[in-house]
């Protein structure tokens, strides 16, 4: 234990000493400066460690001058104070180091003194147990901050300092007045003493007014909306290092004071106040950042919002009616939030310091300049936006689950705000990762430390809180995830990394074999692991452009999916869900033109994840069993989460670009397997939740309609795509619509159809995307009108694509038909006749794009520039071969897949009998009809061969003619380009269906975005930049607080 007074006194003394020293030797001054900070760091750390390890149990009470508490000033350092103190000095040390590397502005000695005293002031604020002393330290901090904010000596920084100073003075006036009034009212200045005295006096309105005055002063410092204009100006105008320390450390000290005020000054309206101001600030700031073009200011908005969330949490934390466990959770969440925000935001500000321009467009492409920069940036952004396993995620999770159910609207507020946060943070991400940017600075040690600390803290939090929350992790999955990350170090050699990944997935399969296939979870596990292994095989040749991170991220996606399907608990499922979503975001973002797509993907992932989280929150229990819920809200929220991943209309907006622009080697996984996680989720949601609500059948009917409309509209839009991958994207979305219909039917036949189609869709869409990857790799474009005639160059790919397309279209002898047949049988059995009609129509329209793929890519005229392309690379060819053979085999023997599916459902009540049986001649027989797959296959192949042989024997001599030798009205065509009909292939059809393909949903989403942006634009106009106005807001808000929260009228 180090006496806290030593920290303060030694720092003070050395500040004075540096004041002398700097006159004589700058070097020594600097040395001394760092020595002091390091001492502070270790001293504060020792205290914190003492508390953590349990060596110090009681709060440390320092009696200055030897006087007992009410008489003299005393410092009171408990666990929170020690923690915040440690945080302050850590951030200060990092900031100082960063500033030193960058170069202190002249005169250096003075700025070091200011910096030292700033951290000292913050520490003093944290440690002190006396209200007037608090005021003194606030003033120390403020004055140091005024000086530091102005330290850049640019017009902006000086202006910011002035505004800060004016508003800060008003704030300290309020604090001073209220402290003196408090003294007058209670006769004491000591916090504890006042706390006990206040308990003894009756809280008349006037007393409350005094307390509110203190709180108003504090709220100004805590940057609540709308009296935070000064703070935003400071964030924008000041030197980023200063801002990093201010936002990372100093504000946290003020927050601690806020907590103390809430604890000691038993203010009745504290809860309401913190809810209103915290929640309001949080919500408003998250949205007004949308239109912000200045990165530093926008980070400022984010800071303000985070602080708002902290204030809100404080309200709950100090709410006496909260159960102990919830209180514990909220406490943990506050700690994590503070840690997360301090390090992530400081790192971001320090990164901003490395970038020349603070404008958004100035950040364009800077991530691609320096991998370290990218790492820090992504880590920080992920952490702030709450991506597992970073502390921000756990903080949010803990907070949400701690909030009592009767305040569930607060959850909505938090999640909506978080969504806003996602929107603007990932817009920055998008901007920063797009194209090639300017060079960035290399002063990255401090933010790197922050990022590493974040990761560490995230893992620690994972270990500490996961079990408390009831999140259970399969140890094998964790091991495999660790392996996945470890693959990163093999990044120097792509082939090693690939082989390593294969080995890890192989090991995973080996370890997981016992789990596979036994039940629903095992079924999906098998799909995930085996499917991913296959698709992984095909990634190598085309992954040239992607980075070291590709394989680790890929494996993380794979194993988080494995963890997801193995989850026996909604929360576990959610954690893995988030992990999967964000890892796939990373992967999508690797596509060279995928930045916007990744942004939209992030937004929609977040919409899904948050609504799912809200749903899980509202569930009566967390385990994956039948849960009784009332009303339609819970299933709706849950299902929305899953539907996003399935890209069901109207949540499909992300899919086109995410599928179309993501790296070619990743898209098969995205379409083949990741979308199936939505299927899994919907299945269990329907099974465990929707099955139990009274309006379940109609809910499912609506789901069925959603599926049918998705299938229809997406198919229709797919017809008009000219980009190969986008076409496949829409097709994929449409196909998943069929699966949704099957799920919604919820009869044995329907679920059989859904699962069959799930596997089948994986096979053929995986195949198609793999083939697309190969083609794009060879041809160099995904624009179909520029292809054509590739059948002559890629026969194997054509054959496998053809088979896949036949499966996709659901034409009999190939396996795709099985899903269709089961689905229609189920639909007709169920009597959902209108859905049947729409589905039928959709599958007919699907023929249009099926032909488009085959024609535009493989048939028609071979273009001159493609005349030398080769067959797709070997690994891809192997995967194609495996997949198309399996399509054919399944086509002939659907029982190979139907039997396992039946076994899966055998354990579910009401699903024991599959709804069909097998007969020798009739094949699969349902209650309505029958279908003999083997016969059809034999019949088709046999008669085809017969016809072919007959033709070969009897026909005229067939001569192969040249490519350009076509009937062309006697003319001689000049080039293949003239003859190839690729562009606008379905223009005539477009005229017929133009009413259906109007991008209404996209327009609606865009409209929502625009409206919110416009609203944000209006709201942020209140920050006029005029200091008079800011002061007026302060007065106005104070008046409002005084008026509404006291009885004084």
């Amino acid at each position: 234990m180090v006496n806290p007074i030593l920290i303060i006194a030694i720092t003070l003394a050395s500040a004075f000493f540096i004041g002398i020293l700097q006159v004589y030797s700058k070097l020594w001054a600097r040395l001394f400066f760092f020595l002091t900070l390091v001492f502070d760091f270790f001293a504060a750390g020792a205290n914190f460690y003492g508390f953590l390890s349990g060596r110090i149990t009681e709060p440390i009470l320092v009696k200055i001058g030897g006087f007992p508490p009410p008489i003299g000033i005393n410092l009171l350092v408990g666990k929170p104070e020690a923690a915040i103190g440690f945080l302050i000095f850590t951030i200060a040390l990092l900031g100082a180091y960063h500033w030193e590397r960058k170069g202190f502005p002249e005169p250096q000695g003075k700025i070091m003194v200011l910096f030292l005293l700033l951290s000292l002031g913050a520490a003093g604020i944290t440690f002190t147990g006396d209200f007037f002393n608090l005021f003194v330290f606030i003033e120390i901090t403020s004055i140091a901050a005024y000086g530091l904010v102005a330290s850049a000596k640019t017009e902006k920084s000086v202006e910011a300092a002035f505004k800060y100073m004016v508003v800060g003075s008003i704030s300290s006036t309020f604090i001073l007045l209220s402290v003196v009034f408090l003294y007058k009212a209670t006769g004491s200045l000591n916090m504890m003493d006042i706390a006990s005295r206040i308990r003894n006096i009756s809280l008349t309105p006037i007393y409350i007014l005094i307390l509110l005055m203190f709180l108003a002063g504090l709220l100004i410092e805590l940057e609540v909306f709308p009296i935070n204009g000064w703070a935003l100006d400071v964030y924008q105008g000041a030197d980023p290092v200063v801002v990093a320390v201010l936002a990372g450390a100093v504000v946290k000290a003020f927050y601690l004071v806020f907590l103390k005020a809430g604890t000691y000054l038993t203010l009745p309206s504290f809860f309401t106040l913190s809810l209103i101001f915290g929640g309001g600030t949080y919500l408003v700031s998250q949205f007004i950042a949308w239109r912000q073009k200045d990165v530093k200011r926008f980070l400022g908005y984010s800071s303000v919002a985070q602080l708002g969330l902290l204030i809100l949490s404080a309200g709950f934390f100090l709410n006496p009616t909260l159960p102990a466990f919830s209180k514990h959770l909220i406490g943990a969440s506050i700690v994590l939030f503070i840690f997360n925000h301090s390090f992530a935001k400081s790192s971001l500000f320090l990164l901003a310091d490395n970038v020349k321009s603070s404008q958004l467009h100035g950040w364009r492409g800077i991530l691609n300049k320096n991998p370290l920069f990218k790492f820090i940036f992504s880590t920080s952004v992920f952490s702030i936006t709450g991506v597992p396993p970073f502390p921000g995620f756990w903080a949010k999770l803990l907070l949400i689950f701690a909030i009592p159910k009767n305040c569930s609207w607060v959850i909505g507020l938090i999640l909506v705000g978080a969504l806003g946060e996602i929107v603007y943070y990932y817009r920055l991400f998008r901007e920063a990762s797009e194209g090639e940017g300017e060079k960035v600075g290399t002063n990255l040690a401090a933010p790197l430390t922050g990022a590493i600390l974040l990761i560490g803290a995230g893992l620690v939090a994972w270990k500490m809180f996961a079990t408390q929350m009831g999140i259970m992790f399969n140890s094998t999955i964790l091991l495999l995830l660790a392996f996945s990350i470890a693959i990163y170090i093999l990044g120097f050699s792509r082939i090693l990394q690939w082989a390593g990944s294969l080995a890890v997935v192989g090991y995973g399969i080996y370890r997981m074999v016992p789990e596979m296939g036994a039940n629903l979870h095992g079924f999906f596990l098998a799909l995930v692991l085996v499917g991913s292994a296959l698709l992984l095989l095909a990634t190598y040749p085309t992954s040239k452009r992607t980075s070291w991170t590709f394989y680790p991220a890929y494996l993380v996606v794979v194993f988080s999916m494995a963890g997801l399907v193995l989850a026996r608990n909604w929360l576990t499922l959610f954690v893995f869900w988030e992990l999967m979503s964000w890892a796939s975001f990373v992967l999508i973002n690797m596509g060279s033109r995928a930045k916007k797509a990744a942004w939209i993907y992030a937004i929609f992932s977040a919409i899904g994840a948050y609504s799912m989280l809200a749903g899980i929150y509202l569930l009566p229990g967390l385990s994956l069993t039948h849960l009784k819920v009332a009303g339609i809200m819970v299933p709706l929220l849950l299902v929305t989460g899953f539907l996003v991943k399935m890209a069901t209309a109207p949540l499909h907006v992300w899919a086109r670009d995410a599928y179309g622009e993501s790296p070619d080697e990743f898209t098969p996984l995205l379409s083949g397997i990741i979308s199936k996680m939505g299927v899994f989720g919907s299945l269990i949601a329907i099974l465990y939740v929707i099955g139990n609500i009274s309006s379940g059948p109609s809910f499912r009917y609506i789901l069925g309609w959603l599926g049918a409309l998705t299938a229809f509209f997406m198919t229709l839009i797919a017809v008009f795509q000219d980009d190969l991958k986008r076409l496949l994207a829409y097709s994929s979305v449409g196909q998943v619509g069929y699966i949704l219909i099957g799920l919604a039917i919820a009869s044995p036949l329907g679920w059989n159809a859904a699962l069959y189609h799930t596997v089948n869709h994986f096979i053929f869409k995986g195949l198609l995307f793999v083939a697309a990857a190969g083609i794009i790799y060879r041809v160099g474009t995904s624009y179909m009108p520029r292809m054509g005639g590739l059948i002559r160059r890629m026969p194997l790919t054509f054959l496998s694509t053809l088979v896949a397309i036949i499966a996709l279209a659901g034409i009999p002898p190939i396996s795709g038909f099985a899903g269709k047949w089961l689905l229609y049988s189920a639909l007709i059995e169920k009597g959902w006749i209108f859905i049947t009609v729409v589905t039928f129509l959709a599958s007919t329209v699907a023929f249009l794009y099926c032909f488009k793929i085959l024609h535009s890519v493989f048939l028609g005229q071979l273009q001159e520039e493609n005349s030398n392309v080769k067959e797709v690379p070997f690994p891809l060819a192997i995967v194609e071969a495996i997949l198309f053979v399996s399509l054919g085999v399944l086509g002939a023997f659907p029982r190979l897949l139907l039997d396992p599916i039946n076994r899966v459902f055998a354990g579910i009540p009401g699903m024991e009998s599959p709804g069909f049986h097998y007969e020798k001649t009739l094949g699969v027989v349902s209650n309505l009809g029958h279908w003999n797959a083997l016969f059809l296959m034999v019949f088709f192949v046999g008669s085809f061969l017969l016809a072919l042989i007959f033709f070969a024997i009897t026909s005229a001599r067939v001569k192969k003619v040249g490519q350009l030798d076509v009937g062309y009205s006697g003319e001689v065509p000049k080039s293949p380009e003239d003859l190839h009909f690729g562009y606008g292939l379905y223009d005539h059809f477009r005229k017929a269906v133009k009413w259906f393909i109007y991008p209404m949903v996209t327009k609606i989403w865009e409209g929502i975005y625009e409206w919110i942006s416009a609203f944000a634009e209006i709201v942020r106009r209140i920050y006029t930049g005029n200091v008079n106005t800011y002061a007026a807001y302060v007065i106005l808000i104070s008046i409002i607080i005084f008026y509404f929260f006291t009885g004084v009228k």
Partner: protein
Amino acid sequence: MAFFTASILLILIGLYAVLVKRNIMKIVIGLSLMDTGVNLLIVSLGFIRGRTAPIINVKDLLFNTSSKVVDPLPQALVLTAIVIGVAVTAVALSIVMLMYSKKGTLEIDEYKELKW
């Protein structure tokens, strides 16, 4: 009571300057006025009618002191507050000087680069 009212008036006048005046110097003066008002208020809060200053320089005061002197604590506090006010004013003035050196004007409307 007049002391209270007067000091509150001082505070309000200071605030009025901060809220309304367009000249930066006047705003700083307003802040200074506010400080003064607060200090006055603190001192007057410590006053007890009919008592002397808390300096025990005569023997008589040594006994039963608490019935003879005013409350010394507000005075101690005000001492600190005054010094802090001076410090803030000094920093404010230096910032104002810096601002003036940048733009050559003290008009507050010219300093609206940071907004929204």
